[in-house]
């Protein structure tokens, strides 16, 4: 029994020593600097439209990589119909970590992004108590940094966005479906794929 007890204690000591070398304090944050810039546009998402039409929209326009992931659920599923270019095993879906990474890449790799979207004609937004589906048609112009200089590209498409209440009872995006237009023009998913 004593051997067993000693082994238990030894096991814990060993694990503690191993892990202390790469532990992270779960209680305190680093001190910030006093602000010199303006705050970005972000409203408390008490309605699904605020989460999409205000917070996601301004996160894109202001290229705010801090606000962008706040609009997305931890369990986000991003799906698209197809990509115009890309490797053969490009997944047709990804999650929040990839979206966060793409947003940082996109904002750092562009000099300006202009976005416009509006309710998709012929579609009615679908409201349920805990799940809302919004239909939007968009046009994006992105000035992308390339070796030869900055080039401007247009992206058009439709998106079907499902939003749900998060644990704080605020709305965030749980499913985001991107669709090409009928003319086959590059979509938002093509823009994201460029920065994966």
């Amino acid at each position, binding site marked *: 029994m004593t051997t067993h*007890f000693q082994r*238990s204690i030894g*096991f*814990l000591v060993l694990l503690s020593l191993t*892990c202390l070398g*790469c532990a*992270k*304090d*779960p*209680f305190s*944050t*680093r*001190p*910030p600097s*006093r*602000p*010199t*810039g303006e*705050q970005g546009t972000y409203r*408390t998402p*008490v309605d699904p439209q605020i989460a999409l039409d205000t917070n996601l929209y301004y996160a894109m326009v202001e290229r*705010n990589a*801090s606000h962008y992931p706040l609009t997305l659920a931890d369990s986000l599923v991003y799906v698209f*119909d*197809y*990509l*115009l*270019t*890309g*490797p*053969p095993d490009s997944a047709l879906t990804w999650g929040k*970590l990839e979206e966060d*990474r793409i947003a*940082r*890449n996109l*904002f*750092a790799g562009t000099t300006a992004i202009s976005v416009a979207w509006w309710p*998709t*004609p012929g579609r*009615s*937004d*679908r409201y*349920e*108590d805990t799940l809302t*589906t919004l*239909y939007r048609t968009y046009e994006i112009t992105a000035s*992308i940094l*390339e070796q030869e200089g900055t*080039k401007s*590209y247009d992206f058009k498409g*439709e998106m*079907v966005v499902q939003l749900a209440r998060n644990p*704080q*009872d605020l709305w965030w995006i749980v499913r985001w479906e991107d669709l*090409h*237009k*009928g003319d*086959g023009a590059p979509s938002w998913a093509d823009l994201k794929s*460029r920065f*994966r």
Partner: protein
Amino acid sequence: MIVLFLPAAESAADPSVTGLSAFSSASHTLTWSDSLRVHLGDPARLSWDFAQRLDLLRKELSGGTDLRQKGHHALLTARSPETHPCRLKIDLEGEQRSFVETLNRQTLWSRFLAGGLWRAPGQTTLEAQLGWTASRHRAGDNRADDGGFARRLGAKWGAIRRGGPSARLKTSIQLLHEGDNRTHLPSNETKWSWQTDWAQPSDSVFLEWEEQRGDSRFYPSRDRFDQIGRQEKLYRLAHGRWSHASSGDSGKALMRIVRAVTWRADALISLDQNIYHVSQSVGGLGVVPGDVRTARRSYSLGATSSLGPFGFVIDYRYRWVEDRFREVRRDQTAETGELDAGLTHRLTPADSLGVHAIFRVTSYTIPVSGAFFDDRDQAERVVELFWRRQFAPGLVFRPEFSFQRQHQVILSAEESANNNTNDVYVLEPRVEWRPSRAITLLQTFSIRAHYRYLDFKPATDQGHGTLYRRAESATDTRLTQTRRTAWTIRYVYRYEDFGGLYDRGGWVQAVDWDRRSHLLDCRLIWRPWKTVSIEPGMGLEYKHSYNHRREGTGVRRIADKPFWRRQVLLNAQWQSRFGYNIRLSVARRVQDSGLGVRDLDNRWELGMSKDL
């Protein structure tokens, strides 16, 4: 689209047919998914497996155009008896993907493999298959055909060693290689893994290593086939878990306490790496040459204990994620520390108390400060308290209180104006009452207050943050009428308001809007026979909002157009004693959002499966 899955009993030895067919029509989208699996044969003779899946999608886009996608995959496998050390295995596989009427694009791929599987003594298995593969890519008038030899090679070794009546060491190593040498698009993929599992009553150790390497060519553009890209992939995973449990029932008091704790430790390390190369640029939207590397490592430590009326749980989790890109200014490292602890105490047989807390901080660090993101921290604190009181065998009262705080801290001066704090207070008393065996009543009240502050916004008369309040009463009733009939009824009333916080000798909320919602949902669960279940139901929602306009010293409430929706649905299922399983789901939904547009939505699904 709703995914419908109907399981069917299936075993390798018995012939079986499993099918699934699901159709749905909703929101201008038609989907049909169909799959079939057939297993025929005798284990003592040749056995056949056939699996096919067909997915069709038609989506009506705005502007009158359609998006049509079709995917079809089929696999036919023949195997000789398992009793022989040498087995014959033949695979015939085909796949088709097409986008019709939008891009008029199609991809066909097929593969034939034939070979053998040799099982040697000592759990060693060798597998070798050779064959032919062909592919065709088509986009409009452009077409590219390709073909070449295909191969599949595998080896597996395993061993089990027993060190006593209850100690066991189990090890396995596996190697698998698949590839082809098509003229234009050759591909190779190799995977090897090693697993060791050692277990005895008080300790267990599990170690795993896996590595995958892939090298394949592809057409970067879906419309032209004159450029070929190359993709190299490398994925590594190392996983270790060490669990230890100790318990004592003798010795001194301190040792008894220590021994009563069951310690548990988990360690997980994973690394994955992706490398992309393109032989030539295909324009601004093409794949960009270079590397994308992601590395992750994490571990967790935990302990659970029960000592008399006390129960205790504590976990510490650590996570580290590193992203490396082509340019250093896009790189980022995220490090998370999380402490999760809970304590429960059973005061009396009828009363118990509990507290649960989570403290989590994630720090994002970047090597080069950029204009759009910088070093930042995200902190989260959650504290939950509950009390459970059982007044009678059929009456339970459980009030809960919780507090959640989320704090975002951006370190740089350029971005720190966005720093904000979110505080949520929740009080939720709940009563569960079963006055008789036929009636169950669950009544929940919920009151929430969500405060949001910007950290650096001065607290002036112009407002200081916002407050979102929500109060809700939910009544759930289940009436069991007969042994085969039951009703469920749910009614929810909800009040919400939102507004800024202003200094009036104390922070008060100036309401911008308030909203009242009523929701009703009724279901009948009827089982006329043991094999048939029918569930009709209906749902209603009515929501009325008011905007508050400040006029002088007063406030005027202006009613918004009300929102309502109603839904009727029917679910039916039949499971026959001959193995048939059929399920039908039909729903019709009408919504009026007050904008003059009434939205009508119908969807139905049919699923079936059968065992032979």
